[in-house]
């Protein structure tokens, strides 16, 4: 009963957030521009890497959703003080966090489906690779939504946020082997790449799709790291949402 009460209103808040986000069609459209730019660079400079880059673009798009959570949560809290209204209502803080992250996921999914369609044309995925892709993308969404939400609670003005948002997306999305193969990374850095959620997800999908060859140890490390980070961080996100529901 207590569990049901705690999550009551989640569905309505999720639907509200989806509706709010779907009005932001320009933001949804422009969210595809950075991965689009990297796809263009690859198409011009190294076309043979295009399927790997498309998998990377899907992973990056999921990570970008978390950064949209960062901006949205900060905007609601700092500019509109709307979170105080939500928190004063029967909606629980964890429903607020999950609803926000879920709303972003649904609203920002269409561009990812377009990328998936292009990938299917260039390099069709079988059932195993498709399932791996879905699980890995959900794990990346869980990690990045939590990072986005937690970071958003640490700032008091919107202007300070963007450098951190840009830093996170570049550090997790552009530098590690998300848009390119793990094999291009110096051997000493490969274990670090396997521990990062974005590159772990990308190399697992690449391996499942036959775009990259991984050793059993590398695949196990990447899978355990990604699963552990997704579960632990999402649980931490729920804890953090409860803890920061009311400002001191």
């Amino acid at each position, binding site marked *: 009963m207590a569990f049901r009460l705690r999550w009551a209103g989640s569905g309505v808040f999720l639907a509200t957030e989806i509706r709010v986000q779907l009005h*932001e069609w320009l933001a949804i459209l422009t969210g595809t521009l950075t991965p689009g730019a990297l796809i263009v660079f690859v198409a011009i400079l190294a076309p043979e890497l295009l399927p790997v880059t498309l998998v990377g673009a899907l992973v990056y798009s999921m990570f970008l959703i978390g950064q949209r959570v960062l901006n949205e949560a900060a905007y609601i809290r700092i500019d509109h003080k709307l979170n105080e209204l939500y928190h004063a209502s029967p909606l629980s803080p964890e429903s607020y966090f999950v609803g926000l992250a879920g709303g972003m996921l649904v609203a920002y999914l269409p561009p990812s489906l377009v990328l998936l369609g292009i990938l299917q044309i260039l390099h069709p995925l079988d059932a195993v690779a498709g399932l791996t892709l879905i699980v890995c993308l959900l794990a990346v969404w869980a990690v990045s939504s939590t990072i986005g939400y937690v970071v958003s609670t640490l700032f008091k003005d919107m202007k300070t946020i963007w450098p951190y948002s840009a830093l996170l997306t570049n550090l997790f999305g552009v*530098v590690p082997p998300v848009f390119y193969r793990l094999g291009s990374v110096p051997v000493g850095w490969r274990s670090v790449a396997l521990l990062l959620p974005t590159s772990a997800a990308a190399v697992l999908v690449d391996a499942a799709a036959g775009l990259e060859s991984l050793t059993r140890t590398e695949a196990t490390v990447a899978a355990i790291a990604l699963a552990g980070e997704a579960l632990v961080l999402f649980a931490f996100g729920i804890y953090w949402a409860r803890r920061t529901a009311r400002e001191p």
Partner: protein
Amino acid sequence: MAAETPLRSHPQRGRVLPAWAFIGWRWVWRSPAAAIVPLLQPFFFLYFLHVIAPPELFPLQVAGAMLFSTQNIGSWCLSDSAVFRIELRLQDIFVASPVDKVRYLFGIAFSNLIPAMPAIVVLGIILSMVTAVSLFGWIVLIACILTIWILYSAIGIAVSSRLRSQREVWPVGNLIFTLLGILSPLYYPISRLPSGWGEIARLLPATYAALLVQGALGLEPSTNFAVDGGLLILSAAVGLVAAWWLYEWRER
């Protein structure tokens, strides 16, 4: 009248630029990430390009990163002027002050050049390490950077003056400046662009800046400096006129 006397006793000129430089510096000082991220951003892209592209293109990509970083100042100007106008209402104070709109525009552009300078200087040092740069090459590079800085800052501020909510800043800025960054051949020779795209790219000032810089550094032998220089000035002038037309100084 009584209020005017002490105001007139103060110097009326010469303080705007240092004041805006101070605003730029305070922004860096208060938010270290704001200094680190613009410094790192071109290097993130460069690293990615270094991994995927042939190594002989690296000097061209370093020069391209300098232009791209300068072009990005426009995006920061858009964000800054939107915060000043919508959130802080600071623009209202400037409108009511003796500062005119040209100085305000230039001030925002100047204050945003400050956080970008470290990245541009470091990229310049890397460029001199990876390829020989003549005096002519440096002059062309600096002239192109200044042109791109003025033009894209003006575009950023002009677009920002039409935004009604902070929420629009990120998508609009991203749309304009990422698209412009992709369309111009900053990171590769224009000859690599598919037909059709190359023609569209030739409508953009950054393309001519890239061609001039690539030519001056000896990376693109077929550059016609007079034609490309003339087209850079012409396209920049058209862009500045458009920005001036779009720019809204006072609210209606």
